[in-house]
């Protein structure tokens, strides 16, 4: 539901061109675009840390199954 408020005292505020420019940042936009669209350079199974974590999980699973 939208609420409405009448501004009787002054013109409703409007940002100036300079104020709007401050928020304009195309490089941030492209960085975000890349973040969302580009695949990670390394596939997960080739990532050293992920691979190590996978071995640890497998080892724990094995030890638990033997216990």
């Amino acid at each position: 539901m939208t609420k409405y408020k009448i501004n009787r005292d002054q013109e409703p505020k409007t940002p100036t061109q300079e104020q709007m420019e401050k928020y304009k940042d195309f490089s941030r936009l492209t960085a975000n675009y890349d973040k969302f669209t580009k695949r990670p350079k390394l596939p997960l199974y080739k990532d050293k840390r992920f691979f190590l974590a996978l071995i640890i999980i497998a080892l724990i699973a094995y030890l638990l199954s033997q216990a």
Partner: protein
Amino acid sequence: MDKKKASYRQDLEFIAKAKRDKNSFSLLYNKYWEQLFLYIFKKVQSMDVAGEVCQTAMLKAMMNLPKYEDRGFPFSAWLYRIASNEVNLYFRKKKKDGFVEIKDTHVKELMGEIEISGLESIDEQEKLLAVLSELKPNQAEIIEMRFFFSYSFKEIADFYKISEANAKMRLYRIIDKLKQKWSDQ
């Protein structure tokens, strides 16, 4: 060639470029940033929020640009649609109601359309806004665009991707609904 047609052709050119090279999206970004920012600002009433929402809307536009097809409507209409959805999403996430600050002259204009007497009465003006708040968001939106943001029928038609005649019909149906609600209270 008039200004609007020239702008439309320029957009098609920019879109084709941006589809080939993402950096060319900056042409559209620079052209529409202010317009979109102002549209969002009118709805969220905060510059920081408008900046963030505008950036997200632009990102979504950039990501969906490969799917964009020209159907004879201005590119800006597509952008406004995305921005409108982003604003609604923002209010839903924040669990806040939408908020629109308006001039009393705009309310008086709407009162005139609904044939309410006593345009100067603050009580009547507030009552009308309460009735307006009861409308469904998509119904209130068209009233806001026409009476509070002073959009032309052409701009409303482009926004909804309908003809101008349809935009007028849709608006007057909602005005009739408002009249009905006004007389019922």
